[in-house]
């Protein structure tokens, strides 16, 4: 809907002048006070006042860190994670004698992990830095030494005079002094700021608009006093002192950084805000940080492990305390070989409580291997790689726009596999947002033969009746041929021999047709732009349907060819003479479009000195504004509008009226008052004033514009709903249009039952006429509740019947309009509304505003407590995108605002299918498996330590060499798990798409459910028991080496370690489904690396330790090897049974 996109239009028009003339009011009076203290000495850097003021330069840095604070700040970021804090504390304590192992062995892995994450941060920040450098070094012309010099952006200072040329970005916030236009206007595009592609008009003050050449600036001195830097993009308060007088400045004179000069050769201006003081930089806030559900759950698991850790550490300490206490009893030393008489505090039998307490910390450190130190960093690496795969996927690359899919954040990848509800915008998301003028109804006659995609879908829906010889197809084919023979015009698909090629003059109502197209040609805010190469005239319009109207008018013979501040010129066909004439219309007023008003009008004076109000708007507001004698064709037009809406077309009603001089004068006065008022209800006053004149209109007809469906949308939606994903479409369209679009994109299907909730019932209408607001609200609420109840009972009865009959369930589609939605989201209704909505496989909310979209998103997110994804393309979807768990932006035509706010961006809606069903599914599986496996392998390892402790009277002696312990997570088991996280596929992409039902695995969170997680943990626990007890049973006591030597502490450790490495890596080999050479390399490589390291000692260990190992490695004995095999095979067996 156009109104959605027209928020905050700044098309000031004539009344901007009125603003200048107005006296200092309200806020202007505050200049110089608190919050309004900025003083800018224009073009006067030597002024003592200017020297004193030290405003920031124009250097901009968007980096998170600087060279100086990188280390401390990024370290701080790192240690905000609980696990990292734990490891840091452990590392610190490990320097004390409490530590069961040497300090470096715990410090090194921590440093590696922290270092990798910091390096990642650093690289990301470096990229930002490069962008900053590029931005800071752009060139701008600055007035210094009486002429304009090229300077870098960053050297710009407050008070500098600058010249900005066409299509350049403004380097800072600039007060417009003059432009290439006489009257000092210029056009700017603010796409980077708010995503709106339309041009906005800015005005110089009259007193400065004559400054046009370098010489005139020689003497130019002025002082600007204005507000302090703030983030409000839509207001500015200031005053310009020039020639001894003060002139008020407003947002109309302010050119914002990062917006672009358009349609204007050049402008001159004074810099008022630089660098970080500019409004756009003040606005730069971090987008809301989102975390995936899996990660949140993972935190819980970490807490479980922490508690396990504490429990086993306390158990150990208690036993240790008891054992230690017994060492001295009655003056006798029990374990005399420990010298209990001459002990340190850690083993002192005389102070067993203290010893046990201190031992608790030792144990915490020792069993710390339960907490996987490398988990976070591995997950981050994996996610970044997954994002690269998403970015590189050629099946999600749009050749037309040269845009690949892009993961703008990497921490939601697995969330893509768990989407339960999709909330989609319609315009630009499901549809192309390239409008085509297809039909119109003028004076009660329907013109235009084209068939829309929705109509074709409707025909298909009504059965495959349309045989090739069908009349409609015939017509279509006929026109298709005709179209081919002519040059096709973008935005125009209107075929009717009665109108085209000037034939309309022979129509029964040529005057009405003339008026109709005149309204289309005049009533808009577009600007003609001449393409220099082709000489064609393009239109810079606020919305594509407006452009479609202008093109339609041109094709019929009303060519809009110029606009000035106060006039619009047409090159039009006069039906009486049959000749083309140029006519100029004096533009008096523009009554802007807004989503509340749903209409737009202009007041013009034509050559005949007639005052005309030309108006176009939505049928809901227009019909009630018609005069009694202007309703001549009302019923036919209504029928046509209904028909068009059914065909999925957007309709607007076109009307006009003639104004009397007197009437206009008196109204203008009121309107001006309203416009210049600076009170809070300014907008309401303006609307009210506008409302007064937009009455007694005479109906001319209606237009119908087709918003084409994007490629592949129906197929994609079908697949997604097969995957069990519920789809909500939130649109501003009329209910009929929305329903038809719903059918066209197979959101609604023939076999679905529709439940409609609406307030368009006669009794509500009647109440509305009475105007009693409370009564309306009450009645509406009741009506909504009743409708919801009915819907629920329908669904329940359908469920029961399907249960008894065991037939396939009847599917429901819910359609609700904006007003009803407002009531449905009220506290006492929302619950039953969601009960209803959740039972429907698709929901269409029509006539909803951007704010409602965000609200619905939040309610859906909170109501279902499952993952929601919203997808949209425009600035109006930003709220929705940020509110949802995942925001997907369509990087289409409507600017970058949605993409900026999104987590993922795709070029077309249909890529969503692959993004979710393939990448989402894979990423979910991978991350879930990976985390489970991580816990498994660490529990396996950690518990072997515990079992060993139990055999060593809990003294805190680790079973393994320090370095083996620290390298366990870093080297011997890390790569396979990363390979799992990056490459594993349960089924190929083709099968993922073929059987969308696979996706429900993620929605129901099967792979990361508590039974699964605990199952894996239990698996780890069992593995540790098997490994520990088998190795000890097998190896101790008996002769182990050829010369009869037995196994000692070190060999047992090495063997157990070997078993653990084998077991966890083989477990990995069993769990993954997809073996490429990468998996083979990593899994068998890790084992081989361990074997290599035990045999050839490549690492810089403590030299003595190696030598101890030497013999155990050089003379491998059979039992060990056999036992290894036995163990991992048992492992496999166990896994199978589990």
């Amino acid at each position: 809907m156009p109104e959605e996109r027209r928020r905050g239009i700044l098309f000031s028009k004539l009344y901007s002048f009125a603003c200048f003339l107005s006296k200092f009011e309200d806020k202007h009076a505050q200049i110089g006070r608190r919050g309004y203290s900025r003083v800018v000495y224009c073009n006067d850097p030597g002024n003592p006042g200017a020297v004193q003021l030290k405003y920031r330069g124009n250097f901009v840095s968007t980096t998170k860190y600087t060279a100086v604070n990188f280390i401390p700040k990024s370290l701080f970021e790192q240690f905000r994670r609980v696990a990292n804090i734990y490891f840091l504390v452990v590392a610190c304590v490990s320097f004390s004698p409490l530590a069961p192992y040497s300090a470096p062995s715990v410090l090194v892995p921590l440093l590696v992990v922290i270092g990798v994450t910091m390096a990642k941060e650093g690289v990301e920040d470096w990229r930002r830095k490069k962008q900053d450098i590029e931005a800071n070094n752009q060139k701008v012309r600055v007035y210094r030494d009486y002429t304009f010099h090229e300077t870098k952006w960053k050297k710009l200072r407050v008070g500098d005079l600058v010249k900005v040329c066409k299509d350049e970005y403004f380097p800072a916030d600039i007060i417009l002094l003059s432009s290439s236009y006489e009257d000092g206007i210029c056009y700017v595009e603010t796409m980077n700021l708010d995503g709106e592609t339309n041009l906005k008009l800015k005005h110089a003050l009259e007193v400065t608009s004559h400054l046009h050449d370098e010489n005139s600036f020689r003497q130019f001195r002025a002082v600007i006093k204005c507000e302090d830097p703030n983030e409000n993009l839509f207001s500015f308060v200031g005053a310009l002192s020039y020639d001894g007088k003060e002139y008020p400045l407003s947002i109309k004179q302010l050119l914002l950084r990062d917006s672009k000069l358009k349609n204007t050769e050049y402008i001159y201006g004074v810099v008022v805000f630089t660098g970080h003081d500019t409004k756009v930089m003040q606005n730069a806030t971090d987008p809301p940080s989102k975390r995936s559900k899996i990660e949140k759950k993972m935190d819980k698991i970490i807490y479980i492990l922490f508690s396990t850790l504490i429990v086993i550490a306390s158990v150990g300490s208690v036993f240790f305390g008891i054992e230690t206490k017994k060492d001295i009893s009655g003056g006798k030393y029990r374990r005399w070989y420990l010298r209990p008489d001459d002990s340190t505090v850690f083993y002192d039998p005389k102070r067993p409580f203290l010893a046990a307490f201190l031992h608790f910390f030792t144990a915490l450190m020792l069993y710390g291997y339960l907490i996987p130190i490398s988990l976070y960093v591995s997950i981050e690496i994996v996610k970044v790689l997954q994002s690269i795969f998403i970015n590189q996927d050629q099946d999600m690359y749009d050749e037309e726009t040269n845009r690949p899919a892009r993961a703008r954040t990497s921490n939601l990848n697995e969330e893509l596999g768990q989407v339960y509800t999709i909330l989609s915008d319609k315009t630009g998301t499901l549809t192309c947002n390239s409008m085509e003028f297809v039909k119109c109804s003028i004076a009660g006659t329907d013109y235009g033969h084209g068939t829309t995609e929705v109509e074709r879908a409707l025909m298909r829906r009504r059965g495959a009746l349309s045989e090739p010889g069908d009349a409609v197809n015939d017509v279509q084919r006929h026109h298709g041929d005709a179209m081919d023979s002519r040059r096709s015009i973008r935005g125009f698909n209107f075929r009717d021999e009665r109108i085209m090629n000037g034939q309309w003059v022979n129509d029964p109502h040529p005057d009405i047709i003339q008026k109709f197209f005149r309204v289309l040609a005049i009533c808009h805010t577009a600007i003609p732009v001449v393409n220099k190469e082709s000489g064609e005239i393009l239109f810079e319009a606020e919305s594509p349907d407006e452009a479609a109207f202008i093109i339609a008018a041109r094709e019929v013979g009303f060519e809009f060819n110029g606009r000035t501040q106060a006039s619009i010129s047409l090159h039009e066909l006069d039906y009486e003479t049959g000749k083309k004439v140029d006519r100029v219309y004096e533009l008096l007023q523009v009554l802007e479009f807004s989503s509340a008003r749903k209409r737009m009008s202009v007041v013009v004076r034509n050559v005949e000195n007639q005052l005309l109000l030309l108006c176009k708007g939505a049928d809901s507001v227009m019909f009630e504004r018609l005069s009694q004698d202007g309703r001549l064709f009302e019923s036919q037009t209504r029928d046509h509008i209904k028909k068009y809406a059914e065909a999925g077309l957007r309709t607007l009603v076109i009307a006009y009226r003639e104004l009397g001089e007197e009437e206009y004068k008196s109204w203008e006065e009121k309107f001006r008052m309203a416009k210049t008022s600076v009170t809070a209800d300014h907008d309401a006053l303006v609307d009210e004033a506008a409302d007064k004149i937009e009455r007694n209109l005479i109906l001319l007809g209606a237009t119908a514009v087709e918003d084409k469906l994007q490629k592949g949308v129906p197929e994609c939606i079908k697949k997604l709903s097969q995957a069990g994903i519920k789809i909500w479409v939130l649109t501003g369209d009329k209910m009929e249009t929305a329903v038809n679009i719903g059918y066209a994109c197979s959101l609604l299907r023939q076999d679905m039952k529709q439940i409609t909730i609406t307030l368009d019932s006669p009794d509500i209408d009647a109440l509305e006429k009475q105007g009693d607001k409370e009564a309306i609200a009450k009645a509406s609420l009741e009506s909504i509740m009743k409708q919801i109840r009915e819907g629920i009972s329908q669904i329940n009865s359908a469920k029961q019947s399907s249960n008894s009959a065991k037939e396939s369930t009847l599917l429901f589609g819910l359609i609700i309009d904006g007003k009803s939605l407002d009531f449905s989201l009220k506290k006492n209704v929302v619950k039953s509304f969601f009960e209803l909505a959740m039972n429907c496989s698709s929901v269409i909310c029509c006539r909803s505003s951007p704010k409602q979209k965000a609200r619905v998103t939040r309610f859906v997110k909170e109501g279902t407590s499952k993952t929601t994804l919203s997808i949209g393309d425009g600035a109006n979807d930003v709220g929705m995108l940020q509110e949802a768990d995942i925001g997907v932006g369509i990087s289409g035509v409507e600017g970058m605002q949605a993409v900026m706010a999104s987590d993922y961006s795709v070029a077309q809606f249909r890529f969503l299918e692959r993004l979710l069903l393939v990448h989402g599914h894979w990423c979910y599986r991978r991350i879930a498996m990976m985390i489970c496996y991580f816990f498994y392998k660490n529990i396996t390892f950690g518990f072997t330590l515990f079992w060993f402790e139990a055999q060593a009277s809990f003294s805190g002696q680790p079973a393994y060499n320090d370095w083996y312990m620290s390298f366990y997570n870093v080297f011997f088991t890390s790569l396979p798990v990363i390979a799992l996280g990056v490459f594993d596929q349960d089924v190929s992409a083709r099968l993922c798409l073929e059987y969308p039902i696979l996706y429900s695995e993620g929605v129901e969170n099967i792979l990361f459910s508590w039974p699964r997680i605990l199952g894996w943990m239990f698996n780890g626990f069992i593995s540790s028991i098997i490994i520990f007890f088998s190795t000890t049973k097998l190896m101790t006591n008996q002769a182990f080496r050829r010369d009869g030597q037995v196994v000692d502490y070190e060999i047992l450790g090495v063997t157990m370690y070997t078993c653990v490495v084998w077991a966890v890596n083989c477990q990995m080999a069993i769990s993954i489904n997809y073996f490429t050479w990468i998996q083979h390399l990593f899994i068998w490589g890790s084992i081989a690396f361990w074997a290599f390291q035990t045999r050839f000692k490549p690492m810089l260990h403590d030299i003595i330790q190696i030598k101890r190992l030497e013999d155990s490695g050089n003379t491998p004995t059979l039992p060990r090897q056999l036992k290894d095999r036995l163990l991992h095979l048992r492992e496999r067996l166990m896994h199978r049974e589990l």
Partner: protein
Amino acid sequence: MDVDGEGVSAVATGDRTIPMHPGRHEAFHQFTQQKLPACKPVLTPAWVISIFLLMGTIFIPIGLVTLHASQSVVEVVDRYDIECIPEAFKSNKLGYIKDSSIPKNCSRFLKVYKRMKAPIYIYYQLDNYYQNHRRYVKSRNDQQLLHGLKYNGTSSCKPEQTNNGLPIVPCGLIAWSLFNDTYEFIRGASELTVNRKNIAWKSDRDHKFGKHVYPFNFQNGTLIGGGMLDPRIHLSDQEDLIVWMRTAALPTFRKLYGRIEEDLNADDVIVVNLMNNYNTYSFGGKKKLVLSTSSWLGGKNDFLGVAYISVGSSCIFVCFVFILLHMKNRRPYGGHNLFVLEQERHL
């Protein structure tokens, strides 16, 4: 309105696009599109059953072989810590063992129940002795063992670091608590020669215990721990010490004492004359003397064989269970109809 600073400059400098290289290296393409050739093992019932069957059929014979090897080992164990205390001291074992004036010699008779082939390994086995206690394990200094008095950073050896202001070599609790029971074996009339060389690991002798390091100031303190060392023999030849200093992993452990390099016949009675010097009474530890032969698999340990056989037979069992299950609920593999059912459940 939320303008991300990063985003703004990104737009200003142009959106990034992927350069598409149609002719790019095939493998790279496969990699980025996640289409690398891969093997995807699908566990069909037939596969699972045959894997289990295979495992069973391999494991059971291995188990039998290893069990046989273990059974062929002859092991004679004799616990002597209680019997070697004279009746008078039965109630005061600690007093007996601590009193150095009482002679500690003791004789035991071992009966060989089966022919034992040389080499026969002599072990002593201690019980409830925590050589893996953290305080104990750490109480040594490897540098000192290798370099002797030259190295004096021996703080880890406390409290057996110095005595009377002089450093102890070898320092630490492990060395201090050296095991000092001795055994002599007599068969019939003749004494059996016990080879006490090469009982320690060669690497330990060569690389860990210095050839020029002699015991110094050892067991000179007021509190005598375990055995004494001959200060004239360098550490690398003190094999008892080296064996003792390879700390055991578990509280029950055996350590090699020596080898008898003659065969012993069945029903031979061996007289063991031992010196029961070592104090295990204070912590209730047992002392055992073990004579054992060895097989290709090492000492006598049935565990490996039993484990193999039990795993193998459970594999076979599982295999049969699976076969039965498969026969009972046979379903077409990869049938799409299952998907349809699922779908209906969800929608």
